[in-house]
Every structure is written in structure tokens, then in C-alpha cells.
């Protein structure tokens, strides 16, 4: 495979819950993103996928959270060690990010154009406002926004959700970043718009050779977009493999549960299957395997020993005591 651009090693993030207590939100998270790769991070709400994404750009508030262990190597440079100023150089330029809620991720009091121009001018102090404005129009064209000159003068509330997400994508890609982190980029959109936005992302990704870290809870989106998939549960990576392996030979019971809960139009499904229960809160993590409270295959050993993430076959990592034996 091609060059590795991002390498996350044993990342651990803790949240401050009171003056003395910290809770571990994610732990032992390791993965790699290659040039042009789309890595999907999947899991339920509260599994730590957004925390992982925000941590890469160090966007979590420093007063309440802390990267307590691990490295985030971007071209070999550890982002954890960078000063705030150095980090700002990376944000929006080398790595940029789009968010779930296009309704709220643009500032309501500024015009679309002003928000885009601000991005260019933050990166390049010498760029004139006029030049930045033209570049922004060009970016809006690239994301298929009709009559971009007019849209530049609109305020966010005058655009639809899908259009706003396009604006976010245009803004995020304006510096041609090497990595785009997309945190549930289509979750808040209706299904038809969702497909358009995904297609647009894929097309731009191919044109610009950008790698994408795609965070989603939707296995359908993963199937359509991702090259590699990382499944997270309760702050840990539970399975990590390329997309065909994940869909054809899922090994972790949680991954299998996620796949079983997918609706399929081509089969008679009967009753939709679901994984019973919810992710336990950080303060009430069970002993042993974190999934043991919901696992259909749970055995005595699972309640005592926490499993490690093991490579059970080449490029297929699973965190389950019983895997390899099943």
C-alpha cells in the first residue's frame, strides 16, 4: 500500500468529571491512514469515535479532557507534542474536518463567503480579500453549488442542510488537505441528499488525492465509501480490517451484531435484529471484556480477562478472547 500519512498509536483520552476524578473515554486506539485511503470508524453513540476524531485535531477542550497516553504521528510528527500555534498551522491546511450538523456548523451571523474567505486568509495573510473571494467561488463550483456568486452572499439559514454541508466540504477542502476528518457528515441529511453528498466526497477525494477518516454509525455508508474499517466499542477498537473482510468474515460478536442489524432490500429479513442493551457509561465499565454485558457468546473467561487486540489473520485485528477459536 501507499505511504502512511497518519499513524495513531495507543491513544488514550481521559475526561475530567470532577476536581479529582478522570474517566477514560478511549484507550489503546491504534490505526493508520494511508494516502488516498478512506478509513471508516464505526460504532454506536458513546463508543469513542468522535472523541478519536476530535483528538487528532486536538479540538477537545483542554480544561476537561487530556490526551493521557499515545502518539498521533502525522508524517512522523507527533501532533500531541505540538504547541497550539503549530497545531493551528496544521488545522484546516494539512488536516481539516467537517461535522455532523450542517445546520449548526456554520456561523449564523456571517455570510457564507465571509466564512470561506476567512479560511483562506487565515492560511495566507497576503492573499487579498478579492482573490480569496474568487477562490471561494471556485470551490463552491467544485462542490456543485448552483449560482455560487449569489450563494456567497447568503447567510447559512438561507441554505438547505445539504447545501450547507456542501459549503462545509468546500471550506474543508479549500486548502487541499491531505486528510479530511468527516464526523458523521451525512447523518443529519435526508437519504437522497446523503447519497449525493457521499458521492461528491468520493469524487473530490479521488480528484484531490485526499485521505478521509469517515466516522459513522451507518454500515451502509461504510460499505459504499470505505477501504478499511475500524469498529469501536466502549472506547476501544474491537475489530480492524479492510472493508471486504469486515463484511464477509466479521469475527467480533459486536461487528456481527452491527451487520445483522442492517436492513436489506434483497432478502426477506423477518424481524429486524438488534444488539440488546446500550454501551455502558464510562463510569460503569464491566470487568474483563467491555462487551460482555451484551455479548451473545459471553463466557466465564470474558468476565475476568480483558482481551487484547490481536492480529488473527494478516491485516485483520480482533479484540475477543474467543476469536481464532470460533
Amino acid at each position, binding site marked *: 500500500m501507499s505511504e502512511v500519512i497518519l499513524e495513531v498509536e495507543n491513544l488514550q483520552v481521559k475526561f475530567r468529571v470532577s476536581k479529582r476524578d478522570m474517566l477514560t473515554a478511549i484507550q489503546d486506539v491504534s490505526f493508520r491512514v494511508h494516502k488516498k485511503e478512506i478509513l471508516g470508524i464505526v460504532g454506536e453513540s458513546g463508543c469513542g469515535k468522535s472523541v478519536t476524531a*476530535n483528538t487528532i*485535531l486536538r*479540538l477537545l477542550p483542554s*480544561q476537561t479532557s487530556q490526551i493521557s497516553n499515545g502518539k498521533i504521528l502525522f508524517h512522523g510528527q507527533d501532533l500531541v507534542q505540538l504547541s*497550539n500555534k503549530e497545531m*493551528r*498551522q*496544521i*488545522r*484546516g*491546511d494539512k488536516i*481539516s*474536518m467537517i*461535522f*455532523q*450538523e450542517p445546520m*449548526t*456548523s*456554520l*456561523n*449564523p*451571523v456571517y455570510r457564507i463567503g465571509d466564512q470561506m474567505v*476567512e*479560511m483562506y486568509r*487565515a*492560511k495566507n495573510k497576503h492573499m487579498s480579500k478579492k482573490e480569496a473571494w474568487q477562490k471561494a467561488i471556485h470551490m463552491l463550483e467544485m462542490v456543485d453549488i448552483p449560482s455560487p456568486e449569489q450563494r456567497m452572499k447568503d*447567510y447559512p*439559514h*438561507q441554505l438547505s442542510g445539504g447545501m450547507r454541508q456542501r459549503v*462545509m466540504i468546500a*471550506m*474543508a477542502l479549500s486548502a487541499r488537505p491531505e486528510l479530511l476528518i468527516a464526523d458523521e457528515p451525512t447523518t443529519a441529511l435526508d437519504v437522497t441528499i446523503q447519497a449525493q453528498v457521499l458521492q461528491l466526497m468520493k469524487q473530490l477525494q479521488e480528484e484531490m488525492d485526499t485521505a478521509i477518516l469517515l466516522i459513522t454509525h451507518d454500515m451502509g455508508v461504510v460499505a459504499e465509501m470505505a477501504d478499511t474499517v475500524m469498529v469501536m466499542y466502549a472506547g476501544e477498537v474491537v475489530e480492524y480490517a479492510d472493508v471486504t473482510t469486515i463484511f464477509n468474515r466479521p469475527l467480533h460478536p459486536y461487528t456481527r451484531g452491527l451487520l445483522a442489524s442492517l436492513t436489506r432490500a434483497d432478502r426477506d429479513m423477518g424481524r429486524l435484529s438488534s444488539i440488546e442493551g446500550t454501551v455502558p457509561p464510562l463510569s460503569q465499565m464491566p470487568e474483563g471484556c467491555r462487551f460482555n454485558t451484551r455479548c451473545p457468546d459471553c463466557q466465564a473467561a470474558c468476565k475476568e480477562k480483558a482481551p487484547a487486540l490481536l492480529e488473527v489473520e494478516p491485516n485483520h485485528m480482533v479484540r475477543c478472547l474467543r476469536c481464532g477459536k470460533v
Partner: protein
Amino acid sequence: MLKYILKRLLQAIPTFLIITIAVFVLSNAAPGSPVDLIKAAGDLTPEAEQELRVQLGLDKPVAVRYLIWLGDMLHGDFGTSTRTNQPVWSLVQERIGPTLVLTLTSLVCSLLIAIPLGIMASLRPYSIWDTVSSFLAFLGASTPNFFVALVALYIFAVKLGLLPSMGMYSSNGGGLGDLALHLVLPVSITVIRMMGTYIKQTRGSMLDVMNEEYVKTARAKGLGEGTVVIKHILRNALIPIVSCIGLNIPYLVGGSTVTEQIFGWPGMGSLLVLSINQRDYNVIMAITVLIAAAVLVVNLLIDLLYAYLDPKIRLD
């Protein structure tokens, strides 16, 4: 935008009329009329009393008297002061300037102090800094204003002799510097009282906005922290702060009446107190209506500012 301004203006008219009715009816319902005062002072034959009533227009029904009063007022005629026999307008006119100077300076100073304090408190919530500013805010808001004023007068004017205790200018005249010295105490008293609300409002709105996703977007764009705080957080937080300023304008005006009285400030507030003591109804009504109109105008301005700040209002 023009439609919005027009709508606001039209809404202000009935409000103003209701205020005039309330002022007129309340003044008339209060016991004691100028005639009673004159009667108490000396002998008044029933005929002379009746003549006086006709002369003062008190023989007509309340509704008619209201309409006459309103009509005259809209033509700039507020009647005659029963205390000094001068036209009310000439009495009130010279008091408007000093009151404006005092209230506007107080408002500007409160905001200049409270907004930065609120911002700092919001950037480090629950820090020592936040606790201290909260404490000051509550202390200022909960200590009776007249008490603080008297203590300040005693310390700074009487004991230390640093600041003048009365009036707007020294008796030997003075320029801007002299005015500024006279402003220090009354303005400080108002600032102490008003500050708390603004500090708390600023802190609260800033904290609300900080959690918005677009603030994260701004950081993810690689903008500097200063730009994020001022351009993205404060700019949005200003919207509720501005409406809070609007809501507090009546308290600002009401409070300055007390302040003016204590510091002998030659404004409308002290004239109002004097007129109330003398049952000089024409002056009382004129000042009340003027203050109400001023509050209406300021609120109109606040609404316009609000529309300027929030494109959702401006463009709908």
C-alpha cells in the same frame, strides 16, 4: 429591514398612548389637587373655588381632560407648573441634558467594565477569577444603592475630600475635567448596581455559544484563539447581551432618579422628586411621559441593533 423598522415604529405608538393614559389616570386618581393645596393655604369662597376649577380645566370630565392634555402635549405644551407658574417645558428642558449625560455615561461605563469581566469569567469558568467577578456582581446588585452612595459620599467626598459631593459643575464653573470629576461618584454607584446583570449575562451567553458547533468549525479552520473568541463567540453572544441591555434600560432610568437626588444632580430625576413633594402634577406627568418615551425610543434602537446583529431577523 425597512418593513421591520416600520413595524416596530407602529407598535410603539399604541404603547406610548397606553402609557399616557396610565400616567393621566393615575395622576388624577391620586388624592389632593392643586385646588386643595390653595384651599388649605387660605380662605377660598365656593365661587372662587369653582372659578379656579374652570380656569384649570378641572370641571370637565376626565376623558375630555385627557384628550386636551394629550393634544397640548403633542404640540409641545406640557402646561404650567403649579409650583413655579413657569411653563413645564422650560423647567424640564434644562434638566434633560444632565440626565442624559449621567445615564449614558453610566451605561457606557457599566458595559465597558462588565463585558470584558464577563468574557474573562467565561473563558475560565469556575476559576478564582470567575468566582471573584461573580462575588462582585452579586455584592453590587444586592447592596441597596442609596446606602452605597451615602458611604461613597462619606468616604470620598467628606473624609478624603477627593471628589465633589454635589452637583454637576463647581460653583466657579468648569470645563469637561470638572464635569468628569463630578461624574465619578454618581456614575460609579450606577455602575456598581448595573454591572452584575451584564457580567452574568455576558458570561452565560459566552458559555452557551462556546459549545456551538460553529465554534469548533472556527478552531478546525486553524483560526487563532483571539479571532475565535472575539469574532465567532462574542459576536454571537452579543445578541442576548443586547436584549438584556434593552430590558434593563427602565431600571437604569429609575435608579438614576435616586442617584440624582442623593448627589444633587440637576437632572429630571431630582426635579421629579421635588415635583412629587409639591404635588406639581403637570411636571410629574410631563417627566413620566418623557421618560417613558425615552425608554420606548431606546428599546426601538435596541431592536434595530438586534436586527443588525442577527441576520435571521434582518432578512425575514
